[in-house]
């Protein structure tokens, strides 16, 4: 078996019960020899304890400013196959649903034009194809486009939106995460492909506050399903659960606002005090269902640590009637998104995420800029320091 490079260190990672990426790289290398050099270079990193990629570099396809990450080896003489080793981001389907036919084709193109290695999926949501060269990029891209797949985001643009499985296979979904993700992605093709923002901007859609797509920790706008009216209770099913486990201890006592109690064996919920944390519904899915007035909350500003520290999404819109707006092609939501982008465009600086901009200029300034009212839901508590900037008109009253 003629291995191009000896990889004793990586070979250690073929041992053990968990499925091995080294095995995968080797399998890819069988079809796509450039990946042999990738194995060699990674082995060298394992020896040297340092990456062997040069910093950045350009790669892309015509008329697109995004969708590929340029990557060049720092030792192309040793590893010519990865002299260029770009990755191509292919916009996944809503909910990551595929069939075998399309997946085989997707894999085939990756083998033909690239290293035969895929990320299923990238952390943002894209299918990533590793080992593309600039020369083949256009062909690979067109091959995917012919399958009806397009590139995803990259650079200072809208990044590929993604969503949880939602109504496709989850009883908790309060709105159609797949549809809105798909519709908005199509709406914003230009923003996705042609970077013209201050920095990246991410949208993620979760059907309920379990947030299975982790939107609140990594998307500039997180859309999290919720409801406005009362939790629907099937008292008979509650009784069944009571037989099965200690409902008081594991459900009621863990409700963050303690707004549920038993009256006799009847479960009562003070819905006016429910914060829609979803715990009780998670624990007793047969007995409890979210209400009929479903919609979503919008959280803004989540991002990774750099530059000013990590941010979680913060409450911007407690309830947005997405089901109503979807009839109108999400006109209202798109209005809000444009207002946000305009404000960001006008007041943000380069490499400043929207959350950082809001932190810098203050939430109220931002709200005024995008036409929203400050409401108590946005804060944990009202201010505790007395440094209030009264405005002239108020002081002159």
């Amino acid at each position: 078996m003629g291995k191009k490079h000896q990889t004793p260190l990586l070979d250690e990672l073929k041992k053990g019960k968990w499925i091995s990426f080294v095995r995968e790289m080797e399998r890819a290398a069988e079809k796509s020899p450039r990946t042999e050099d990738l194995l060699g270079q990674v082995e060298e990193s394992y020896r040297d304890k340092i990456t062997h990629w040069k910093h950045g570099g350009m790669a892309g396809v015509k008329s697109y400013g995004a969708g590929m990450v340029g990557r060049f080896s720092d030792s192309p003489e040793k590893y010519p196959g990865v002299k260029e080793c770009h990755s191509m981001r292919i916009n996944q389907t809503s909910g990551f649903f595929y069939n075998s036919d399309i997946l085989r084709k997707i894999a085939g193109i990756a083998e033909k034009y690239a290293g035969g290695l895929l990320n299923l999926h990238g952390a943002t949501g894209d299918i990533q194809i590793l080992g593309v060269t600039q020369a083949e990029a256009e062909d690979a891209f067109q091959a995917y486009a012919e399958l009806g797949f397009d590139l995803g985001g990259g650079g200072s643009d809208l990044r590929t939106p993604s969503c949880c499985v939602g109504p496709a296979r989850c009883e908790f979904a309060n709105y159609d995460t797949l549809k809105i993700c798909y519709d908005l992605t199509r709406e914003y093709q230009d923003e996705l492909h042609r970077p013209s923002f201050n920095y990246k901007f991410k949208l993620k859609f979760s059907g309920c506050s379990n947030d299975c797509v982790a939107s609140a920790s990594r998307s500039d706008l997180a859309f999290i399903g919720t409801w406005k009216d009362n939790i629907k209770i099937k008292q008979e099913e509650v009784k069944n659960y009571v037989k099965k486990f200690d409902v008081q201890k594991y459900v009621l006592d863990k409700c963050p606002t303690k707004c549920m109690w038993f009256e006799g064996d009847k479960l009562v919920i003070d819905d006016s005090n429910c914060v829609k944390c979803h715990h009780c519904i998670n624990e007793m899915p047969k007995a409890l269902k979210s209400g009929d007035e479903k919609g979503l909350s919008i959280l803004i500003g989540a991002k990774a640590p750099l530059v000013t520290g990590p941010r979680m999404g913060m409450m911007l819109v407690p309830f947005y009637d997405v089901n109503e707006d979807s009839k109108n092609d999400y006109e209202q939501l798109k209005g809000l998104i444009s207002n946000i982008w305009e404000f960001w465009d006008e007041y943000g600086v380069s490499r400043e995420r929207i959350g950082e901009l809001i932190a810098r200029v203050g939430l109220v300034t931002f709200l005024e800029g995008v036409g929203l009212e400050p409401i108590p839901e946005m804060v944990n508590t009202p201010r505790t320091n007395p440094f209030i900037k009264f405005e002239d008109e108020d002081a002159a009253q």
Partner: protein
Amino acid sequence: MPEEVKKKRLTDVGPHDYHDYLPPMVKKNYGKWAYHEIMDSGTMVHVAENGDKLYTVRVGSPRLVSGSFVRDLCDIADKYCGGYLRFTTRNSAEFLFEDEKNIVPLKKDLEKLGLNIGGIGNNVANIVHTQGWVHCHTSASDASGVVKSVMDELYEYFVEEKLPSKVRVAFACCLNMCGSVGSSDIAIVGTHRRPPKINQERLLNLCEIPSTIASCPTNSVRPDVTADGKQTVRVVQETCVFCGSCYTVCPAMPIADPLTDGVSIWVGGKVSNARTKPTFSKLVIPFIPNEPPRWPKVTEAVKTIINAYKEGGRPGERVSEWVDRIGWPKFFKITGFEFTKYHVDDFRLAESMMNYSAYARL
């Protein structure tokens, strides 16, 4: 597709319509699921309002996969699922099918292919991770290798439900933290510990001075002038926190260093709103050096955390809830990890992290 269209260069076709890939059973019961039940750590069933049942079997994935791996999955999907399959938001693969009888043979076939079945319910889910030395230029550690080493150790917790609640482990190879790493039950993060070394010549050609200066969270990149009078930058060594942000915008400021790079370990993050608000992971081990190929100290640390949690966590408690209940001092005591000055926040909002009370477990 008609010939003439094919010849035209395609752009902005957008993502493929997902409807094309929804299994018939999903289409039929779209938005009409009534409840689900977890059957075992790798299997669940969703029951529709009309009583229809949809079975799901989940397998883990290294995420960095070959075309052959994809074909393996496709073969199984063809055999049991009418060709349909999906991936999860944590890169597991899921097989969806209607016939309960398929469960056993399907799992056997999966095992034959070397796939790991599990991740559903109260266990360690598939680890989300990043590129590492396989593809990224800023990584302080490899990604896939650490993850493989950790998952080999945590294997039993993936394939069986033995933990008080879900445990989300995540890996990021640098502080850019690609993914929702910073709010995981256990996060492993590539960490540099030396300031960037400036290559003045390259800097003059390659870097934009103002954006390089603006990139620094601690204002440690300062304008400077070279001997021959050209605009450049210098790094204030005393305040640099080795974040690598300057390197991201300026290639002439490499920060990776084989001697000092490694990972840090963070605990108690959470994204869901269930019971408690989302929260970031907190530093528990500031630094472990890179020890490829199997990172033994990292796997040991993760196991120590998992064991302590398994031992101490009450049913239904996420790691964050467990630590909240017992307190951080006790966490350090039972894990044996050392609490150091590095654990005390000193960044922008550090003040909001202090204990403003007389609360103490004595």
